[in-house]
C-alpha cells in the first residue's frame, strides 16, 4: 500500500510540475499577477509529493519489502540498517529519485526564499525549474520506476553491490547530487533572464548564493567520492580520469568560472552575456554527466545498468535543454545591454583571464572524455583516453592559472596596479621558492616535479592570506584590535582567502603523491614488508564473520623508523549473497601522511599477497577541498546575500573595496 502511495505521489508530482512550468509563464504573458504567482505554491507542493514518494521507497527498504523489484535486487534482510537506508540510492532507479528530490528541493527553496526578487524573474525561474522537473519525473516514471512490483515476491533480496556497502555511499551521492542539481537554479535564472530580456546586478546577486551553494556541495561531493575510491578500491588511487569522474569535474570547473564571473557582473555590471552562457553551460554539463553515467555509452568503473531506451530518453532531455537554452540564448542575448568597459589591468580583467583558463581546462576534459565516443561512431575504433592525455592537456592549462591567481586576487577593481600586486605577491613567491629549493636539496635524486608542485601550493596558501594579514595586522595594534578588524572584513573576503588557500593545500597533496611508494610481497605471520618510511609486520591472519559477509582479517604492526604506530587491520571479504569478494584496506594516518596496506590472494604455501604503501601528505588532497568548501560556505554567510533589499547596481559598482 505504502509503495502504491509513493508511486501515486510521484505521478501527481509530474502533474504539479507541469502546472509549475506552464501557468506562471502564461500569467506573465497575460500580465495576470494571480496566475504568475502560482509558481511558488506549485514548487512547494511538488517537493512535498516527491518527498512522500522518496519516503515510501525508503520505508520499503527498511521493511525489506522484497515484493518491490528495486528493493529485491539491491537489498538484503541481513544488511545493517544504515546500508538499508543508503541502498535506496545505490542503484539507478533510486538514485534517479534522489536526483529528482534534490531538484524539487531547490525549487521549493527558491519559492520559499525571502529575498525579494523581481516577480517576473522568480516566475520565469520557477517555470524553467519546473520544466526540468517534468523531464526527469517523466524519465523516472516511464523508464526507471523504482516502485515496480515483483510477482511472486522472492524470500530474500540479492544484496547491494558490496563495494557500495560503505559509509561512503551515505555521504558521497547526496553531496554530489546537491552540487550537480543545484546548478539547475543558475540555469533556471539564466533562462528566466533571457525570456525577460533584462539582466543586471540584481540578477547576479540573486544567482550567486545558489551557485555558491551548489559549488560548495559539489566540491565536497567530488572530494568525498575521491576519498571513498581511495580507501575502498584497495590500491590507493584517488583520481582515475574516469569518464564519470570527468562528468563531475566538468560542471565543477564551469561552476568555478561562473562563481567568478557573477562577481564581475555584480560589481561592475559587465560580462553579462558570458555569465548567462556560462550558467547554461554549467548545468548542461551536469546533464551531460547524467547521460554519461546512466546511458552506458562510455565504459567506466561506475557502470549503471545499460539500457538503450534510457540512454535515448536522457539524450532527448539533454538535447532539449541544452539546445533549447542555447537557441534562446542566440535569439535573446543580443537584446541584453552590453556592460561597461574595463581597464586591462584590473580585478575584472583578472577574472576574465580566470574564466578564459577555466573554460579552456574544461574544454580539454570535455574533449578527452567524449573523443572515444566520437571516434567509435566515426571509425568504429575503440580507444581509451587515460591519465597521460589529461596530464598533457589539463595540467599545462591549470598551472599558469594557479601561478597568476595570487596576482589577480590582489588587483583592485576598475584600475589595478600590476606592480603593486606583484610586490604584494613577492613575499609569498620568495617563501615558496625557498621551500622548493629546500625540498629539492632534501630529496635529491627524487622526482623534481614534486618539490615544484609543493612550492606552487605554498605560494597559493601564503598569498591567499598575505593581503588579509596586511590589512588586519598592519593597521591595528593589539590582539583585540586585530580580532575586531578581522571580524569587520566582509565574510566573502575571508571566503575567497580560504577557498584559494584550499586550492593550494590540495595542490601540495597532489604534488606529494610523486613521493609515494608501493611495496608488494607475500607474507606469512611474523614476516615484514617495507614501503617508504613504514615497515608492516603481519601479526596474525584469522577468519571472522560479519552480518552479511565472512572475512579474513590480517593484523599488521606498523613501524616508522624506531616509532611503533597503532596496528591496523586489512580484510579480504566475501559477501555471501552475491559471492563477491572485496578488499578492505587498512589505513593508519600519520600526521597528514598515511600508511596503507591491502590484501591480495592467499597463496598455496599459506602466505598472503600484501600491497603496502607509504602515502606522504596524501590527506592534504581532501583537507584542501574541505578548506575550499569552507571558503564557499563562509562566502554564503556574507552580509550582502542576507540583506533583503537589493542595492542599486550603481552603488555596488562604485564600492571602493574589492570584496571578492
Amino acid at each position, binding site marked *: 500500500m505504502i509503495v502504491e502511495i509513493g508511486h501515486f505521489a510521484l505521478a501527481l508530482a509530474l502533474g504539479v510540475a507541469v502546472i509549475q512550468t506552464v501557468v506562471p509563464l502564461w500569467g506573465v504573458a497575460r500580465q495576470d499577477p494571480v496566475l504568475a504567482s502560482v509558481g511558488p505554491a506549485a514548487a512547494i507542493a511538488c517537493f512535498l509529493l516527491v518527498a512522500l514518494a522518496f519516503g515510501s521507497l525508503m520505508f520499503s527498504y527498511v521493511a525489506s519489502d522484497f515484493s518491490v523489484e528495486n528493493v529485491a535486487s539491491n537489498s538484503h534482510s541481513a544488511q545493517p540498517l544504515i546500508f538499508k537506508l543508503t541502498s535506496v540510492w545505490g542503484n539507478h532507479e533510486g538514485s534517479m529519485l534522489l536526483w529528482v528530490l534534490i531538484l524539487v528541493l531547490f525549487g521549493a527553496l527558491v519559492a520559499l526564499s525571502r529575498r525579494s526578487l523581481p516577480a517576473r524573474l522568480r516566475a520565469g525561474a520557477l517555470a524553467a525549474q519546473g520544466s526540468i522537473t517534468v523531464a526527469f519525473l517523466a524519465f523516472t516514471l516511464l523508464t526507471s520506476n523504482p516502485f515496480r512490483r515483483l510477482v511472486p515476491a522472492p524470500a530474500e533480496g540479492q544484496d547491494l*553491490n558490496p563495494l557500495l556497502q560503505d559509509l561512503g555511499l551515505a555521504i558521497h551521492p547526496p553531496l554530489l547530487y546537491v552540487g550537480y542539481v543545484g546548478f539547475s537554479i543558475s540555469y533556471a535564472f539564466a533562462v528566466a533572464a533571457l525570456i525577460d530580456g533584462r539582466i543586471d546586478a540584481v540578477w547576479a546577486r540573486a544567482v550567486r548564493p545558489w551557485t555558491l551553494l551548489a559549488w560548495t556541495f559539489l566540491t565536497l561531493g567530488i572530494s568525498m*567520492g575521491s576519498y571513498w575510491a581511495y580507501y575502498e578500491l584497495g590500491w590507493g588511487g584517488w583520481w582515475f580520469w574516469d569518464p564519470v569522474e570527468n562528468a563531475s569535474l566538468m560542471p565543477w570547473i564551469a561552476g568555478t568560472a561562473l562563481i567568478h564571473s557573477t562577481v564581475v557582473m555584480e560589481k561592475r555590471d559587465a560580462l553579462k552575456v558570458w555569465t548567462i552562457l556560462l550558467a547554461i553551460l554549467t548545468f548542461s554539463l551536469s546533464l551531460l554527466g547524467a547521460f554519461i553515467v546512466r546511458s552506458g555509452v562510455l565504459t567506466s568503473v561506475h557502470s549503471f545498468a545499460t539500457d538503450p531506451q534510457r540512454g535515448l530518453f536522457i539524450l532527448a532531455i539533454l538535447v532539449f535543454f541544452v539546445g533549447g537554452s542555447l537557441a534562446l540564448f542566440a535569439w535573446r542575448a543580443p537584446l541584453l545591454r552590453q556592460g561597461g568597459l574595463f581597464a586591462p589591468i584590473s580585478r575584472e580583467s583578472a577574472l576574465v583571464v580566470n574564466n578564459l583558463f577555466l573554460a579552456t581546462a574544461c574544454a580539454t576534459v570535455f574533449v578527452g572524455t567524449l573523443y572515444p565516443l566520437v571516434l567509435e561512431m566515426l571509425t568504429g575504433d575503440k580507444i581509451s583516453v587515460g591519465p597521460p592525455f589529461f596530464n598533457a592537456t589539463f595540467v599545462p592549462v591549470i598551472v599558469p592559472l594557479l601561478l597568476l591567481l595570487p596576482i589577480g586576487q590582489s588587483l583592485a577593481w576598475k584600475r589595478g596596479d600590476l606592480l603593486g600586486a606583484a610586490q604584494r605577491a613577492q613575499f609569498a613567491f620568495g617563501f615558496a621558492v625557498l621551500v622548493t629549493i629546500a625540498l629539492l636539496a632534501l630529496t635529491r635524486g627524487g622526482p623534481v616535479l614534486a618539490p615544484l608542485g609543493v612550492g606552487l601550493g605554498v605560494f597559493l596558501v601564503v598569498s591567499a592570506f598575505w593581503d588579509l594579514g596586511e590589512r588586519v595586522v598592519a593597521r591595528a595594534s593589539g590582539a583585540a584590535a586585530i580580532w575586531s578588524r578581522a571580524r569587520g572584513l566582509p565574510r566573502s573576503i575571508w571566503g575567497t582567502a580560504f577557498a584559494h588557500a584550499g586550492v593550494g593545500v590540495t595542490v601540495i597533496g597532489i604534488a606529494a603523491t610523486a613521493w609515494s611508494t608501493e611495496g608488494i610481497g607475500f607474507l606469512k605471520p611474523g614476516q615484514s614488508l617495507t614501503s617508504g618510511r613504514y615497515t608492516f609486520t603481519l601479526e596474525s591472519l584469522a577468519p571472522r564473520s560479519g552480518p552479511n559477509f565472512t572475512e579474513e582479517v590480517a593484523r599488521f604492526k606498523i613501524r616508522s623508523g624506531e616509532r611503533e604506530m597503532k596496528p591496523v587491520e586489512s580484510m579480504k571479504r566475501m559477501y555471501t549473497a552475491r559471492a563477491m569478494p572485496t578488499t578492505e584496506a587498512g589505513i593508519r594516518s600519520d600526521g597528514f601522511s598515511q600508511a596503507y596496506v591491502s590484501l591480495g590472494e592467499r597463496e598455496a604455501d599459506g602466505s598472503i599477497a600484501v600491497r603496502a604503501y607509504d602515502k606522504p601528505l596524501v590527506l592534504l588532497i581532501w583537507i584542501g577541498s574541505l578548506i575550499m568548501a569552507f571558503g564557499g560556505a563562509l562566502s554564503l554567510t556574507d552580509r550582502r546575500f542576507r540583506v533583503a533589499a537589493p542595492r542599486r547596481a550603481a552603488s555596488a559598482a562604485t564600492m571602493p573595496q574589492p570584496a571578492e
Partner: protein
Amino acid sequence: MTAQTGFPRSPVRKGMTRKQRRMVLIASAGAVLAISAGLVAYALRDSIVFFYGPTEVVEKGLMPGTRLRLGGLVGEGSVVRTPGQKVSFTVTDAKTTITVNYTGLLPDLFREGQGVVTEGVLEAPGRFRADSVLAKHDENYMPREVADALKKQGHWQPGDAKAGADAATTPAPAK
C-alpha cells in the same frame, strides 16, 4: 598574464577604443585556446590506447611493441601462477587466443571464464605483456568493449555470459 595585461601602463593605453580592447581580448583568448588545442591534438596522437579483441590483434597484423588494451574472456584453466607474483593466462574470444603475462596482484574479480581488460604491450604475435589488469566492480558486469569484441566473433548470446540484457536488472554503480 596574457597579452591583455602584459603592456606597461601608458597614456596610449587609455586611448584604446572599445574595439581595440575587444580585439586584445579576442586575440589573447584565441592564443590560449590555440595553445591548448595544440596540446590536445598532440596528446590525442600520442597518449591514447586502442582497444582490440584477440582476433583483431591478429587480423590487423599489429607490430610487436604496440601498446594496446586487450579484452576478452580469461581462458578456462589457463591461469598459471609462478613465484615472484608472476601470473600468466590467456585472453580469448573463442576464435583466437593470446597469452598474457603479468606481474603483480590481480583484481578481486579476476576469474577464469570471465571478461577481462588488460593494458600493455604486444611482445610477439600471440604474446602480450600486461602492465595493468583492469578491475571490475560487479561480478556480472561485462566491459562493453569485451561484449562487442565477443559479438563480432559470434561468440555471444545475450544472457550467455551475464551481460547485455541481463545486466539491466543488476545495476551497479561503483566506487
